[in-house]
């Protein structure tokens, strides 16, 4: 007697119809790389925006002392003047030691004591309503100071351009990986259709439509890719969690500051992988069936 009646009918395609174990492994690895690319893009973007924000919140003023006035006195007067300008949180003279500390990595120790350094004032701007370069320059001129204001616009532009480029490259990498996964699925679907030619012909001659047969492959590969995508995402999540735990909020490197929330970005991976596989398998199956690989198309006319 039928043991499983009236249970669920088994699948009409044989298990592992097209080397699916290997395909699942390939998709899982691709998804793992795609997840890392995605989080990498987000982290790089976060780092670049952090740097740009920092640069936007500061300005540097170079003061040229007038005749009869020392550089430090002129810088002190400039700092005092700027402190009272609306939109400035703090203005302070950069002492020689701080300036030497900044230059030491570039010039080395030997030349620093004899090097004539500019007199600089570091200005921290109010992040809510920062004073503009024009306002700062006007205030300095009104105080009779010969000074030039650098709002780091040049650096900020470079950083923002670099961040945009890194994000675009990461996105392109992500899309390439998605295409690679789709190509692997198309190949596997075609291989499956060829390997299961006899089964498909039997189904076809028993009344199955091409859409129904394509649907069998679509479901098979969609579920397989969703599972493989979940595996890849979980592996990537574990790696990111480990890096976050080891590196703290700043990450292992300041160029890639990771956040716990980044792991949530990986949650759509199974759905995306499943959808890509679903579409790729459907198109591959319908194209193969339409080309008449299953007979019925041989005609000399």
């Amino acid at each position: 007697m039928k043991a499983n009646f009236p249970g669920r009918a088994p699948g009409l395609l044989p298990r592992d119809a097209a080397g699916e174990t290997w395909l699942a492994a390939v998709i899982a690895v691709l998804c793992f790389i795609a997840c890392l690319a995605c989080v990498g893009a987000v982290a790089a973007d976060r780092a670049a925006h952090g740097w740009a924000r920092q640069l936007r919140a500061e300005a540097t003023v170079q003061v040229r002392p007038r005749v009869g006035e020392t550089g430090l006195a002129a810088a002190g007067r400039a700092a005092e003047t700027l402190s009272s300008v609306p939109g400035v949180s703090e203005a302070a003279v950069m002492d020689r030691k701080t300036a030497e500390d900044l230059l030491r990595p570039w010039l080395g120790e030997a030349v620093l004591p004899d090097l004539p350094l500019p007199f600089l004032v570091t200005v921290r701007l109010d992040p809510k309503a920062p004073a503009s370069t024009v306002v700062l320059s006007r205030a300095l001129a009104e105080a009779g100071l010969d000074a030039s204001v650098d709002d780091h616009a040049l650096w900020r532009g470079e950083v923002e351009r670099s961040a945009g480029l890194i994000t675009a490259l990461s996105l392109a990498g992500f899309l390439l990986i998605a295409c690679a996964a789709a190509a692997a699925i198309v190949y596997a679907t075609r291989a499956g259709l060829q390997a299961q030619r006899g089964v498909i012909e039997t189904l076809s001659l028993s009344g199955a439509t091409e859409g129904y047969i394509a649907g069998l492959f679509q479901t098979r590969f969609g579920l397989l890719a969703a599972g493989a995508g979940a595996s890849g995402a979980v592996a990537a999540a574990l790696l990111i969690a480990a890096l976050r735990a080891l590196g703290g909020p700043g990450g292992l490197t300041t160029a890639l500051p990771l956040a716990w929330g980044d792991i949530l970005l990986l949650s759509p991976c199974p759905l995306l992988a499943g959808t890509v596989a679903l579409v790729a398998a459907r198109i591959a199956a319908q194209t193969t069936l339409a080309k008449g690989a299953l007979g019925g198309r041989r005609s000399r006319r």
Partner: protein
Amino acid sequence: MPAPSRRAAAAESAPETVRLTGVGFGYADSPEVLRDVNLILPRGSFHFLTGPSGAGKSSLLRLLTLAERPTEGRIGLFGRDVTDINRSAAPALRRRMGVVFQDFRLLDHLDLFENAALPLRLAGRKRAEYAPDVEEMLRWVGLGGRMDARPPSLSGGEKQRLAIARAVMTKPELIIADEPTGSVDKAMADKLLNLFQTLNKLGATVLIASHDEALAEQSGARRLRLDRGRLTGGL
């Protein structure tokens, strides 16, 4: 409910299930397998198609199951010209047929029950509805005790009986069988012939390709002979 179209009504009342007119067929870059075949199978008729190996019997059956298309001539099924039929229309016509393949075409990964139930499942029938019919049919062909077995564990005769059970499960209008008794003993061959005759009496058109002249003789059915691609007795 809309009135049936004139074409549909004509197809419904067509006196013949199969009509082949001047049909020729050959596989690419090979000599013609069938030449100028003319054949009419009236609705409810019973025919045996005989002929030596390589005469083109299987090719003719493949044309009738729409697995191949003719290189010459026209094919009509159920009162409709299907020579240039759209691919999407073929499955509906195939569901009106039951086909027994010479090589059985069983699905080795499914058990006997699922193999026999395949056409019903593809027709969208519910498992709970068809399960008793499938079990009864499998019992009838002597496979009732092995419903959970898989085809590779069956003998040739058992596979043949399963293939026949699957072909007739939907009570098709046209039954096409390629050597359906080739692997069974005389007693089972008689029993299967009896099954085809019963289905024929119920209205099905039956075409059996066989090299078993004795069985054809015993059936009392009209005989068609195919020799080197040419058919005699078709009209």
